[in-house]
């Protein structure tokens, strides 16, 4: 009885924590309301006003756009810069591409995070909560775009990445980069509307665009979507990421957890009872001799 009672409580406690897992948090969000940004790379002139605006808004690095010659090299975002503009020499001439967190619809980082420090908010931005993060960097390992960046040089490191200007959105403003863009390369709006605009542009100017909207289906759809004049693999995008939302890769495993948690103990108890006989080391000797000498354990 003792044993069973103990096992039962443990199991219930354990699986209450896991069986009730809410694996489909994304259902809470309304896809219609989900906001994002459309980047039309054919319009970008590489002025990097967005980089400056981003740095100023979020108190991270503000690049010296005129003198740093940063377009000559391929950069990635870092723990000091949430977004970068890179230049690609292509058949359609120089193409400038702004890169940052894609604000995935079903974000790998958020589903990876053990403490929900990475959170896919209802409106769409994926944001980080410092008071929850334990710094395990599972979000970095999981993000298909390698966007979360970690402060390796800090005793109290933060995860740094684009927040889609979550605070500004709350105040009813546009993201800083969009507000700063002089060429309408960046369009802020609901993803549904952005997709419509993107399709329109392709439809109206079929020769100016490749007929693909990056982020429409990639990794299950992203908040940022891109238009381009050249195939996306020529301007630094991975085209082998697939269309399956990344959290689904671990979903099956997680679904099997409650099953194992209940099934295996039941199976093992049954097996044990089936075999019968005394437990090894169950002290047959105890009744006959004093416990101190109470051998049996080593046999």
């Amino acid at each position, binding site marked *: 009885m003792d044993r069973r009672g103990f096992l039962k409580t443990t199991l219930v406690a*354990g699986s209450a924590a896991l069986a009730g897992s809410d694996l489909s948090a994304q259902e809470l969000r309304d896809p219609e309301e989900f906001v994002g940004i459309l980047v039309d790379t054919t319009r970008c002139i590489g002025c990097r006003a967005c980089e400056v605006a981003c740095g100023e808004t979020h108190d991270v690095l503000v690049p010296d756009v005129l003198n740093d010659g940063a377009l000559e090299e391929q950069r990635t975002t870092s723990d000091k810069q949430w977004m970068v503009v890179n230049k690609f020499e292509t058949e359609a001439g120089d193409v400038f591409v702004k890169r940052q967190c894609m604000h995935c619809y079903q974000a790998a980082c958020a589903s990876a995070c053990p403490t929900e420090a990475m959170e896919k908010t209802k409106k769409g931005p994926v944001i980080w909560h410092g008071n929850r993060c334990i710094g395990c960097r599972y979000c970095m390992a999981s993000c298909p775009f390698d966007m979360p960046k970690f402060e390796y040089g800090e005793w109290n490191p933060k995860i740094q990445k684009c927040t889609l200007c979550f605070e500004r959105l709350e105040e009813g403003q546009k993201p800083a980069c969009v507000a700063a863009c002089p060429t309408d390369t960046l369009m802020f709006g609901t993803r549904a509307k952005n997709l419509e605009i993107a399709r329109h542009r392709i439809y109206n100017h079929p020769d100016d665009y490749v007929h693909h909207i990056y982020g429409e289906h990639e990794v299950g759809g992203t908040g940022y979507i891109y238009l381009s004049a050249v195939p996306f693999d020529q301007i630094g995008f991975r085209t082998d990421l697939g269309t399956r939302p990344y959290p689904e890769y671990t979903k099956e495993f997680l679904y099997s957890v409650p099953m194992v*948690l209940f099934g295996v103990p039941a199976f093992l108890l049954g097996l044990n009872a089936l075999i019968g006989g005394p437990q090894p080391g169950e002290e047959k000797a105890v009744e006959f001799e004093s416990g101190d000498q109470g051998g049996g354990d080593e046999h």
Partner: protein
Amino acid sequence: MSTNATVTGEFSRFFHFLMQEMKPRGPWLTPFNVISIPVIFTGVVIIVIRFIYGLGAVTNLSQDFPWGFWLGFDVITGVALAAGAYVITFVVYVMKVEKYHSIVRITVLNGLLAYIFYAGALVFDIGRPWQAYNPYIGNKFGFSSVMFLICWHFFLYMVAAFIEFSPVVAEWAGWEKARKFLKSITLATVILGITLSILHQSGLGALFLMAKPKIHPLWWSEFIPVLFLVSSVYAGLAMIIFESTISHRVFRHLIPHDPKHSFDDILFGLAKGAAVVMFVYYFFKALLFIHGKQWSMINDAWGYWYLVEVIGFVLIPGFMFAFGYRNRSLNIIKIASVMALLGIVLNRLNVSVISFKWYAEVHYFPSWQEIVVTLMIIFTEIWILRWVVTRMPVFKSAH
């Protein structure tokens, strides 16, 4: 009143007893001490630096390589090698195979310490360990996170393994009542421990499922959790063979002679088990390879490296275990166990570090500090193990 007096009496008795037990036994200037003490000391200094200046000050981790040697070797590999405890408690307590009973205590102790130290190494690796209580009492639970599951299971498993081992502690401390009680809940904790082990051994593999585009396709598969689980079984068995061979040499004077089940017999049994599991594992690997139509990948450096792991360190040691069992050759079995263990190390590192971003121009390589800290962890574990084994009735009942 009188209970109070007995409690204080018992407490002071235990305190004196503990002080007595803390004193070193045996000579100080052994080769192991001479090597391990400076390493442990250096490791502590490195850890202090890490906590002041950040992970970047002592590791080669980067934005491209968020997980390195501490996670890939200490945690992922260390936990696989600690699998012996759940395998052997299954055999002894669930299947009631008396033969292996004599190695249960040492194996569980090894497992417990391995979890405390290797899973505990996560504390150095994660960036904000002072918030590590978050997944437990947390303001938020990441239910959809494999890491969340692993955090919980490590913790619960340590509790279970400690309860499994606790009768030995009670016996050592002379707490007879506690010992009887703890003994009586062994089966329940064993079953809990096995269940948790199944989940987190496979869970460690599941950590890499979302890293699909970053891991070389020869190592990524949606079946990584199953592969990790199956290989943990033979990893555990090989580790028991390896460890007990060493401890039988080092602690020879502590081990009573068991006339019914000779130590060699036990090793042969373990070898047979390991061989079977390794063949199953190999078969599964081969199936995935053929099913994934990966022939085209085999003809470059990564392909050869894959073959080294799968043939050289799974198939061959598998055959050696089988051969050693057939021909009753302990030496072959011992060599096979070392090879099988190396194979596990290779596999876990291949998945978590070596083939991670195999396309990167500059690949991660651990810094010397990362390696020293790893050695520090191993050495400290051995120190504690030695202390426990020479004081508590690990190999035999007390007194």
